[in-house]
Structure formats: structure tokens, C-alpha cells
């Protein structure tokens, strides 16, 4: 027997344990929400995902209501949409700095701005008080704590607890006094925060922002996204490299990465500046009179080849040794072992795994 219910007049199926929000998203994808993150337990804070449920006096939050057989659900009646518009006006009024946010702030940072456009909500009707105050005193160069933009969706607090298991941030007070904070209201570096940046990437308003990426707001060019894998440990987290023209401007987690499912750590999230660091080697070097000096590719290749030739001819094929990298891609390690084996006829090749 299949589980089915009626959604906006259509009979649709659902899986045991699915919420109305999840069912609706599979079929229409139109229900708005600000506090929902796929990886977190449904929270029902923002109330934007409310739907009409036959037999229920008031609209119910679709994210916290489990689908049941023969429910009759309406997701976009005029009353519901009016309700959502009012809610959006309330939320936007909390955001005196405006909802237009640079996308470099974080992966979900455009969610509020998009919904504000969809519901044509400005905050003027409820202008006045706001909750959350920015923390420009926090000097860490990674996580910008711009809580003037905070709408108290609690996504940051929940991702820190549920996804990371770190419980570094929490909520102080209620109502207009709500403030996302750490224990004793201190700096992130003095808390249990590991700077994984998950709070930044789930924030729907850009209140928590990627401080490394934000340096590139004025870098000209459109943001391009390139799917790749983190260059640090062996977990192999999937990332998106953000670039503008030829400049890397940020890294964001790939939510469907098989190894990480959207998680990253401080190194993968914020540790990418080295790629275009001025210290990078930009041309070949050869040693002349005891000193390494710039050389052309032609000269350097000839010097390198000549040295190997000489050692092989003087000391034999086993006098040459190759060490491959555990950080470079397969094509590097494969070419290294082949270069040594084919070129010199020796198995004197290893990689850096023994030390």
C-alpha cells in the first residue's frame, strides 16, 4: 500500500518520515523558507513554510509536520501568500542595513534577498527595532560577525551543534534582544569554535560572512564556480572554488560532496590564499655559482636532463632516485614512477608516506 496525500489538488506519494516540506519540494519546489537546511533537524522558526492543512484550524509549518496518508495540503493559497508577505516584511524590517548582500559572504547568503524580491517585501511597514548587533571587535580574519543582518533563524547555532558537534555558539535572550553569541559573549577564538565556517555557509542573510572572500568584493568580474576537491587531508571533501577572471576569491563546500556532505574544516574553508601568494615560484631556477637564479624552461630542462644523464653514465641506473608527492594529483605520481622506471630502468621510486 503506497503512502499518498493530496498536494495542491494533486495526489502525490511520500516516504515514511518525510515532512510536508520535503514532499512539496519534490513536487513543486516552491515553498519559501529561511530556517531550513537539509542537513539539520527541522526547526519551524521562520514560519514562512506554513501551509493550509485540511482539518487544522491554523496554518502549519510544513517543515515540522510529518506527511500522513490522505492529508489534504494547500501550499500557495492567497491567504498563505499574504501571510508570508507579512512575515517577510517583519523579517526584512529587522535588517536595517538592507538585504542586498554580496554573494561572496556565503553559500546561502542570497536566500533572504531572493525572498524579499519574490514577496516585494521592504521593511518600511514595521521599521523600528532590530535584534542582533554586529561584532566588529572580533579580530579574526575568517568569520565576519555582522549580526545587524541577523534574523534569528538559528541555522548557525544548529549547524554548529548538529553538523559539527562543536556547540561553540548559542543564543542569548529572546525577542528583539536575541543575539547569536559564544559563551560569555567573547571572541570566537576564545570559544569552542574551530573556524570550520559551516555557520557562514548556512547563514541565509550574510550576517555571518567569509572574511577571506570578502576582500574580493571589488575584484572585477563575475563569480565563477569550479567543482573540485580540497587539497588538504585524505578525507577528500568536495568544494567549489570561486574565482573572478583569473583570481581565486573563495572556497565554498559542495553540499553533495560524497565524502563531506557539505562540511569543511578551517583549512579547506579558509586556507586557500597560498595558491596566489606572491611567494609562488613563477619560473624555473637553476644553480649558477652556488646560487639559484631565474632560467628559461629550455635552459632548466637541459640542465636537469644533463645532470641525470651524467649520473646515470657515471654511476649506473640505480644511482638515481625519485620521490613522488602525496599532494599532487595521480597524473603527477604516475608520471614520476614511469619517468624513473622507463627512463632509468630502476624501481628506485617512493612517495612521502613513510615519514
Amino acid at each position: 500500500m503506497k503512502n499518498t496525500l493530496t498536494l495542491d489538488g494533486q495526489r502525490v506519494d511520500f516516504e515514511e518520515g518525510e515532512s510536508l516540506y520535503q514532499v512539496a519540494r519534490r513536487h513543486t519546489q516552491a515553498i519559501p523558507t529561511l530556517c531550513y537546511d537539509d542537513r539539520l533537524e527541522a526547526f519551524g522558526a521562520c514560519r514562512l513554510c506554513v501551509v493550509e492543512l485540511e482539518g487544522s484550524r491554523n496554518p502549519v509549518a510544513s517543515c515540522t509536520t510529518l506527511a500522513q496518508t490522505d492529508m489534504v495540503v494547500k501550499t500557495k493559497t492567497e491567504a498563505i501568500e499574504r501571510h508570508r508577505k507579512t512575515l517577510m516584511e517583519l523579517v526584512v524590517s529587522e535588517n536595517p542595513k538592507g538585504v542586498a548582500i554580496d554573494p561572496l559572504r556565503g553559500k546561502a547568503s542570497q536566500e533572504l534577498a531572493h525572498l524579499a524580491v519574490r514577496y516585494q517585501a521592504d521593511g518600511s511597514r514595521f521599521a523600528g527595532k532590530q535584534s542582533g548587533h554586529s561584532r566588529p571587535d572580533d579580530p579574526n580574519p575568517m568569520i565576519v560577525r555582522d549580526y545587524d543582518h541577523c534574523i534569528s533563524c538559528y541555522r548557525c547555532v544548529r549547524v554548529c551543534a548538529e553538523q559539527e558537534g562543536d556547540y561553540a555558539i548559542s543564543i542569548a535572550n529572546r525577542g528583539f534582544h536575541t543575539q547569536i553569541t559564544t559563551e560569555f559573549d567573547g571572541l570566537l577564538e576564545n570559544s569552542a569554535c574551530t573556524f570550520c565556517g559551516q555557520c557562514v555557509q548556512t547563514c541565509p542573510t550574510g550576517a555571518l560572512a567569509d572574511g577571506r572572500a570578502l576582500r574580493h568584493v571589488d575584484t572585477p568580474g563575475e563569480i565563477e564556480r569550479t567543482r573540485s576537491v580540497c587539497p588538504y587531508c585524505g578525507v577528500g571533501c568536495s568544494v567549489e572554488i570561486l574565482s573572478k577572471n583569473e583570481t581565486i576569491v573563495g572556497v565554498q563546500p559542495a553540499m553533495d560532496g560524497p565524502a563531506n556532505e557539505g562540511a569543511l574544516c578551517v583549512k579547506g574553508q579558509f586556507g586557500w590564499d597560498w595558491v596566489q601568494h606572491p611567494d609562488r615560484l613563477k619560473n624555473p631556477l637553476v644553480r649558477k655559482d652556488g646560487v639559484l637564479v631565474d632560467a628559461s624552461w629550455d635552459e632548466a630542462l637541459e640542465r636537469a636532463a644533463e645532470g641525470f644523464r651524467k649520473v646515470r653514465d657515471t654511476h649506473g641506473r640505480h644511482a638515481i632516485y625519485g620521490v613522488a608527492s602525496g599532494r599532487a594529483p595521480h597524473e603527477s605520481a604516475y608520471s614520476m614512477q614511469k619517468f624513473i622506471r622507463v627512463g632509468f630502468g630502476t624501481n628506485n621510486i617512493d612517495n612521502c608516506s613513510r615519514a
Partner: protein
Amino acid sequence: MSNPLADMEKPDVIFCIGTNMTEAHPVAATRLKKAMRHGAKLIVADPRHIPLAEIADVVLPLRVGSDVALLGAMAHVIVREGLVDESFVAERTEGFEALRAHVAEFTPTWAEGITGVPAADIERAAILFGQAERGAIYYTLGITEHICGVDNVQSLCNLALMTGNIGREGTGINPMRGQNNIQGAGDCGALPNNYPGFQPVTDPANQKKFREAWGVEVDLEKGITKVRALDECGSSIHAMLICGENTVVSDPDRAHCEHALKSLEHLVVIDVFLTDTAALADVVFPAAAWGEVDGVFTNTERRPQRVRAAVEPQGQAQPDWWILTQLARRLDFPSFEYESAKDVFNELCALSPTYNGLDWDLVAEGRHHWPVPEKGHPGTPILHMGTFLRGKGLFKTPSYRDPAEVIDDEYPVWLTTGRRLAHYHTRTMTGRAVGTQYLVPEELVEIHPHDVTKLGLEDGGLAVMSSRRGEVVVKVQATTKSPRGTVFCSFSFSDVPINALTGSGYDPETDTAELKVCAVRIEPARATLV
């Protein structure tokens, strides 16, 4: 890893030994924390009070290098308590009677004397693991970087085999590989004993295969390991090609390494920065970095995934495969006709039985775990299901032996080394990233507060730490993360080169350095200034 990362959310008992996972593999650790939220129990064995120990149900703070004693005692208790999975042992293993006899003497009381872990805690851990429906073992270099690294791994295998915790979902023996593509480097055959796909170089069938594939005569003997090669520099080794490794800072016994590389007639280094190692070279080639090259990484769960170029390489930098191809052509080496990374990877797939079913396009989404023996094969997320590579799982009977170097009156403190969350290896990357450098700007030797007092040191003051091989000056941090008598440093900072001290011994089978144990003396810095 025998099991995929996704399985980390599935065990009911997790045994982490020699892995500071929240710092070295943080995202993997988040999955263990999820298992714990669903009720899984955690056993942590580590000399230091690492963050995982904070959330563990049983903590086994063993003395550095005493793992065989601890694990043998756990096996002893599992046998004594009747927690052996008799049907698994009967059907899938051999040699259990020898193990049963062997561990009879490994009583928890005996092990307490060696490891310093209370016998009662060893009992608790063993019973917890022995009773697990799904028991999973995770380890890192804390197990392997010892003179008895192989014995340590075999002791863990014994635990998994005797409890039937292998070849099933949510179980397994799971080494967490340390670098992004260290698994891949081995897969690709950058090993002195194996061709790509772990095909032994001494097997005539493999020799024939590669002779025909590459069109050259191949070496019939194994090569030597890098550790031996460094010993041989200036004697039988006279030229080296080092790609993307900062040997001078990352390897044990820095003075020995530097001397070795300086003894060469010819040193060529391919790297993205002028590292301490590249600075010794005769020729340095600028490599295109991550973010600038297309290629494949294989992660710790044997999953090949594509990396992609987002920007052009800096300056004249080029991908490693391109550099090696150009060099090979200069030297008239045959079989280097590559035009792209794809060409190289597809050649690897054609020659490797573990990658035969893959190609450049198939790894685009990273859906497979190797081995993928033929096209259309779904991959192998869990190893050892139904059978082991050799048929039956073999119990081994390792005995405890002391580390290569033990503390004495002259060098009375144990030093163990590892990573910190914010830094990676020798900091060539994280030292040039503002955020990570902000969090940990300098090396600190982590010492128990009582030892700080006992040694006449000051928290935040400078100390001279010396071993039989060298000395460093390092800032002191008083912390209960270190137990009394054992101190910790990373090897990340080349200005505080901790590997000037290490290098006391090597595992006789793998040549892996005992980087986790070294005897040192620590004195206030002023003592040496007089």
C-alpha cells in the same frame, strides 16, 4: 579504509587509536560525532588528552609506543570473557589457536605496567568492543609511525578478526590517510616494490605486462625505500628528483636529511614554493598548484575524484605531468606522448587492476570506491566481504618491544609529534594562508603544568629541547592535554624544526620512521646562554 566514510555514522562502538581526528581529519570526525548522537560509544586510546578524549566513554591514555601491550591485553580480555565471534573465526580466519595461546600472558595487569593504563579501563574497553554489534576501528599515524608499526596494525587486525568486525557495514579497520592524495600516490605505483595498482615488481607476469606496455626493459628487482635512499646519498645514490615534498622539514633527523641531499651530485625539485628542500636543488621547476590543474585525487576511502583548474597557473608554472613529459623527451625516453592529464590517467586505468573499470570521464562524479576491476563494475565500498584477498584472515602474534629509544637520566622526557588543526605538514600552504596562520602563528611545546614547574620552565617562556640528534629552542605552553612525562610538538614550523630531534628508529618491514616517540631533555633557554 576497509569501509567508506559514510559508515562512520553507523557503528555502535567506535575505537579510535593513534588518531587525533578532530584536528587531522576534522570532517571525518563530524561523522563519528553523529554516530555518538545516535548512541554509539567511543573508546579513545592516545597518550595525549586530545579533543576526542573529551567526548569518549572510555579513555586509554597509554604511554607512547606501548600499543601492542594494550591491544594484546584487550584481545586477552575478549578471549577470557567469551566475546570471540566463534563462527566468524571458524569460517573466515586461520591461526586463532596460536593467538589464543599468545595472548594468554597479556593480562590487563601486565599491560598496566607497560602502558600505564589502569587494568580496569583496559577491561572496560575490551568488553565494550567485544560486545559491539558493529565495532569499527579508526587509526592514523599514531599507530604506524613506530618501529613496531606493522605489529600495531596486526594487533588491530586481530581485534577485528576475533570479533568479526570486518567485511560488514559500519565496522572495519580504517586508517585515515593524512594527505589529500597519499592514497593515490601509492595507487599510481610510486612505490619501490609495486607497479600501479599494487602489482609487485618482482612478479614476472607484471614485468612482462609493463615491458610490453612501455616498450622498455624493466628492472627485475625491488627498489629501495626513500628512507634507505637518504642513507645512501653520496654512496650509491647520486641524483634525486623530488616532487612536491619538503623532505628537509617533514622527514626525521633534519641534519641527516640536509647532509644527504647536499651529498648528491644532482638534485632536481618540482614544487610550488621555494621550500627548504627546493633551496638545496640544482634545478627547481615551478609546478602549477591546486586550483590550477586538472587531475584526480583518491581519498582515504579509496574514492577517486576529479580536481579541476579554476584559474591559470601563476607565472610560467606548469603541471607536474607536463614537466616530466618535457624532461623525458629531452632524455629520449620512450612512451611519453601525453597531451593532457586525461591521457595520463587513462593510461593508469588501463594498467591497474584496481582502476581497470574507471576512466577520466567515469571519475568525474567520484561515485566509485576501488577496486573497480572492469567497466560497469559498481566499485567496492566495503572490502573483505565474504573473503579476504588471501582467502582466510590470518591472525598474527606480535610481541611487545620497547621503542627504539626509551627515556633515561640524560633524556628523561618522551616527545611525541603530530598535527594541529590549523596547520598542515610543513606549513608551505597554511603558513601562507592568513586565517590559519592567525590561529597558530608559532610552534609551542605542550607540557603538563606540573612538568613545567618541575623542569623549571615558565608557561610562555623559551625552552631548549634536545635529543641525541639535535636541539631546538621552542616556546612552552602549559597544558593538561599532555600527560606528565610526555610533551608534544608539531613538525610544521621550519624555524622550530622538531624533526631535528626525531629519527630514533624505523619499522624493519616498512621503513616507516618512529616519529611518534623520541627521548628528549628540556631545559629553560637561559641555561644554554650562560
